[in-house]
């Protein structure tokens, strides 16, 4: 009840302030009148009576002020007044205000943009889908790609048959859909033009239904897409805009996707990206088109003994059922399928495999790992940068506060409480920060675009929209408020700590500011230095990492290598025809002028592809078996890469399908299985579901990194491409040529007329340098940004130190003038100033060193070829900081030494 009364009266007060003020005035006036009447009755003259009555009241204004501030809701008044005052102050000093607003806008903008990316990548639910909290996933959300063979433990993906089985029998779900786990890039022809790359996914007809998406135009997939070979496509809003200028007649148009015509039936809404956050496919095609989109494969049919696992499965659990119940049912169906597939003889293959029904409102996320950890590092450093910037502002405000000391002293001696003045100063700062925050709305958007462009270097398919969702807005608000408080409270505290009387009598001549304020300034400058240290060291370590990665120890010569991915899918069913075609292509490439050497392999270099076999190594002791990595390679593979053959020979042209089976092992393999003995002449036997093949080791090759730049080289053996069956649909030719991409037309021409199954249009060329560069793009981007942040932090810290020392020098002008007048030499004055700095710099470096050590440990997993506590980088960061600190303090010190005592002491 009281609350209501108060609220109403506060409202009335706010809305009808003039009337309320007038009433208060009248009431107090009446008090004086009535008191005066009494005093006249007591014998005073009317004028004396009024004077006495007014004195009794104690002054109209103070009483009014006490009434105002005693009222409930008085704070609203105060706030409004402080705000008005703040705005006035700001307009009085536009340069200062713009500096503050600009600094904050940039600092908060960078943080907000990074937060949006970080949040969108890691935490936000999938955009544009219905009730993301009820979406579940049955496969591994961290996994992306596909796998041929046999899995164990929790399943990463399922096969098409497994999905179909679930969809038909799993009654615990109101809907189930499947989507291709990897995002493909297809050659797509629009209107008979040249093929362009477009990204897309194969999805089941239930895909859009289960996600709960409505078309922006046309229709989405339905039952039709799950039967026959439906030639339909749904395109994304961005592709529609980019490729069709948002024209409605895009519906019904034909796209040629890798020789297969499909008709556009619909467009998705703008915010929709699908089931994997952070990636925007250009189009979705029905699952049943798989054999036609990837010729030579058929992932729709099960072909024992291998399974092709490539689909993620999502669904919605029927209401009234728990996820656990759905999990039980789905696994029962799944296991029954496995038993049937493997049969009683190989029942153990099925053991341990299972699905896991889990919430998937954030969608699949396999790709996110790299980008996410980079964003976390960047967000953290941006936060520190903002803190350093705020400290600078705090310093600036301390200095400005002392310029306003007279004004504040007057206010305080007129009875404003300290709390009141502090609140007013902080409010002023909040006004500035709020404007900074508003400006940050804009800068965040710009920074976002720039960041996304940088991140596209890392992952060309990276896509996160910038949107002011509640979490992003909340972050922006919190960052703004934090910035205002961090930069505002300390200065306000210091400005008001002084005795107003002494300020007024000192009159601003001679000494400016108090010792406490100077101490605060020094303290802040030291803090800045210590915060800058970890940013600098981190940047240094990351830059050295990139440098090391750019010249990695690969174990082979990475220069002048051109990679050409050739599709052989159409020939998969006929290995001898395929081998013949590859042999002919190999020979023709070798004849191209400018080609020094060439070979090929199934996995290529740094593609992420991986191939293993179950092996036995006779005579290798107890460790003589297990899974080992392997690759199928063409003749002169090692010579082409320039990997030294340490013993024995290279793969030769004479190693054919019908000759003696041989292999070459790398050093890691020899170490594990042959323990120092000469491997040449030993045997490696593979076991493919009971089919055993024995390969004689004919060579030992030096370890080389062909799969990952960072990881250690794993034990691996290499077999001639023709001596081991493969259902792989592509081969990568490794072409050693100084001509770079100039040989591309010749290679294309060489493909003509060899075999109808080799299509010259279906070939991708990449210089190895470009692929290595792409592989380290993430590191490079982070290092680049870390360097920018480090440099910014250094600049800000230097400005902070410079500001504090300049101020200190100005404050001690008289003292220095007297010393100089008494004959102090300029070197001793400079020494005095620098000695004062030495303490704070040292303290900053020491605490900063500790922080830096912690930070370096935290990013250790990102480093390559450099230890977190690398002394050289540590020394360099220390050196840079010392140098900058010296320069920032030397300039004011020299100014102190050059003070003209006559002018200074005369108050000039």
């Amino acid at each position, binding site marked *: *009840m*009281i609350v209501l*009364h*108060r609220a109403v*009266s*506060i409202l009335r007060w706010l809305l009808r302030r003039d009337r309320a003020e007038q*009433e*208060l005035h*009248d*009431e*107090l006036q*009446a*008090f004086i*009148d*009535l*008191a005066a*009447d*009494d005093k006249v009755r007591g014998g005073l003259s009317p004028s004396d009576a009024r004077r006495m009555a007014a004195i*009794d*009241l*104690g002054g109209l204004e*103070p*009483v009014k002020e*006490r*009434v105002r*501030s*005693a*009222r*409930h809701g008085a704070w609203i008044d105060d706030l409004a007044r402080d705000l008005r005052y703040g705005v006035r102050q700001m307009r009085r000093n536009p340069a200062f205000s713009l500096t503050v607003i600009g600094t904050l806008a940039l600092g908060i903008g960078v943080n907000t943009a990074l937060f949006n990316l970080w949040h969108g990548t890691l935490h936000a639910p999938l955009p544009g889908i219905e009730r993301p909290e009820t979406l579940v996933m049955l496969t591994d959300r961290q996994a992306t790609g596909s796998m041929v063979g046999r899995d164990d433990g929790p399943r990463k993906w399922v096969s098409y048959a497994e999905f179909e089985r679930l969809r038909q029998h799993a009654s615990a779900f109101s809907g189930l859909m499947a989507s291709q786990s990897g995002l493909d890039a297809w050659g797509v022809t629009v209107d008979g033009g040249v093929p362009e790359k477009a990204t897309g996914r194969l999805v089941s007809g239930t895909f859009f239904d289960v996600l709960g998406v409505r078309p922006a135009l046309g229709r989405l997939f339905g039952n039709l897409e799950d039967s026959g070979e439906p030639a339909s496509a749904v395109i994304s809003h961005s592709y529609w805009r980019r490729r069709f200028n948002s024209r409605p007649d895009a519906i019904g148009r034909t796209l040629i996707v890798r020789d297969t015509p499909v008709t556009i039936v619909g467009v998705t809404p703008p915010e929709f990206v699908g089931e994997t956050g952070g990636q925007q496919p250009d189009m979705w095609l029905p699952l049943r088109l798989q054999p036609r989109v990837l010729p030579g494969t058929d992932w729709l049919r099960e072909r024992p003994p291998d399974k092709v696992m490539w689909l993620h499965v999502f669904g919605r659990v029927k209401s009234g059922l728990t996820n656990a119940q759905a999990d039980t049912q789905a696994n029962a169906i799944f296991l029954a399928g496995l038993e049937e597939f493997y049969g009683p003889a190989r029942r153990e293959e099925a053991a341990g495999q299972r699905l896991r029904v889990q919430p998937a409102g954030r969608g699949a996320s396999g790709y996110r790992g790299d980008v996410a950890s980079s964003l976390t590092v960047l967000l953290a450093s941006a936060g520190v940068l903002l803190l350093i910037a705020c400290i600078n502002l705090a310093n600036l405000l301390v200095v400005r506060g002392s310029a306003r000391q007279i004004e504040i002293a007057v206010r305080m001696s007129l009875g404003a409480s300290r709390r009141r003045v502090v609140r007013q100063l902080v409010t002023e700062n909040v006004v500035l920060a709020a404007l900074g925050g508003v400006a940050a709305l804009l800068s965040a958007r710009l920074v976002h675009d720039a960041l996304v462009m940088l991140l596209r270097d890392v992952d060309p398919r990276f896509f996160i929209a910038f949107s002011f969702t509640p979490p992003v807005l909340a972050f922006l608000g919190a960052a703004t408020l934090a910035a205002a408080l961090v930069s505002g409270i300390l200065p306000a505290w210091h400005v008001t700590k002084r005795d107003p009387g002494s300020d007024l009598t000192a009159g601003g001549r001679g000494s400016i500011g108090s010792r406490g304020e100077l101490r605060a300034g020094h303290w802040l400058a030291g803090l800045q230095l210590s915060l800058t240290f970890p940013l600098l060291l981190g940047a240094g370590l990351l830059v050295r990492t990139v440098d090391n990665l750019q010249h990695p120890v690969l174990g082979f010569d990475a220069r002048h290598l051109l990679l050409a991915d050739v599709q052989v899918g159409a020939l998969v069913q006929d290995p001898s025809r395929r081998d013949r075609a590859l042999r002919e292509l190999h020979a023709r490439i070798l004849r191209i002028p400018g080609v020094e050497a060439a070979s090929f392999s199934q996995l290529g270099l740094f593609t992420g592809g991986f191939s293993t076999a179950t092996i036995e190594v006779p005579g290798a002791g107890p460790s003589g078996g297990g899974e080992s990595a392997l690759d199928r390679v063409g003749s002169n593979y090692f010579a082409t890469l320039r990997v030294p053959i340490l013993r024995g020979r290279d793969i030769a042209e004479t190693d054919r399908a019908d000759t003696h089976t041989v292999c070459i092992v790398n050093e890691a393999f020899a170490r594990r299985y042959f323990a120092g003995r000469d491997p040449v002449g030993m045997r490696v036997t593979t076991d493919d579901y009971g089919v055993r093949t024995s390969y004689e080791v004919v060579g030992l090759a030096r370890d080389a990194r062909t799969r990952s730049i960072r990881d250690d080289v794993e034990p691996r053996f290499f077999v001639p491409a023709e001596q081991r069956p493969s259902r792989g649909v592509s081969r990568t030719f490794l072409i050693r040529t100084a001509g770079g991409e100039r040989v591309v037309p010749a290679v294309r021409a060489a493909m003509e007329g060899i075999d109808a199954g080799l299509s010259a249009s279906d070939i991708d060329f990449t210089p190895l340098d470009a692929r290595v560069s792409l592989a380290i793009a993430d590191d490079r981007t982070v290092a680049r940004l870390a360097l920018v942040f480090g440099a910014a932090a250094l600049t800000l810290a230097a400005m902070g130190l410079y500001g504090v020392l300049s101020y200190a020098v100005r404050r001690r002008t008289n003292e220095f003038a007297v010393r100089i007048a008494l004959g102090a030499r300029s070197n001793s004055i400079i020494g005095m100033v620098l000695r004062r700095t030495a303490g704070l710099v040292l303290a900053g470096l020491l605490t900063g060193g500790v922080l830096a050590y912690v930070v370096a440990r935290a990013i250790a997993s990102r480093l390559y070829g450099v230890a977190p506590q690398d002394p050289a980088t540590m020394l360099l960061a220390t050196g840079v900081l010392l140098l900058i600190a010296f320069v920032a303090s030397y300039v004011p010190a020299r100014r102190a030494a050059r003070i003209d005592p006559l002018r200074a002491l005369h108050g000039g």
Partner: protein
Amino acid sequence: VDKLDVPQGTLDLMILTILAREPLHGYGISQRLTTLSGDEFHVNPGSLFPSLYRLEQDGKLKAEWRPTENNRRAKYYRLTASGRRQLEQHRERWHRVSIAVRSVLEGA
């Protein structure tokens, strides 16, 4: 002149008591307080008016402008039902407090 300060927290109670008898304006309340206290309490308008405004905001008092007997206009405060309830509660409590204080002082 050695006047007593109005003890902390009792001003509201005294205002309510005075207004329980009849509606009064601010000056009237301060005069009545001085008289009733045997000239011991002199309340400062800087304390009186904030109290009046707060009590009014809390709905304990209601105010209206009325002519005085000498034909000046003044703002008269009167007790609301809720003010009367608060007065009874506070008066009851004050009695207990003063009895308790007196017995402590005399018993010691």
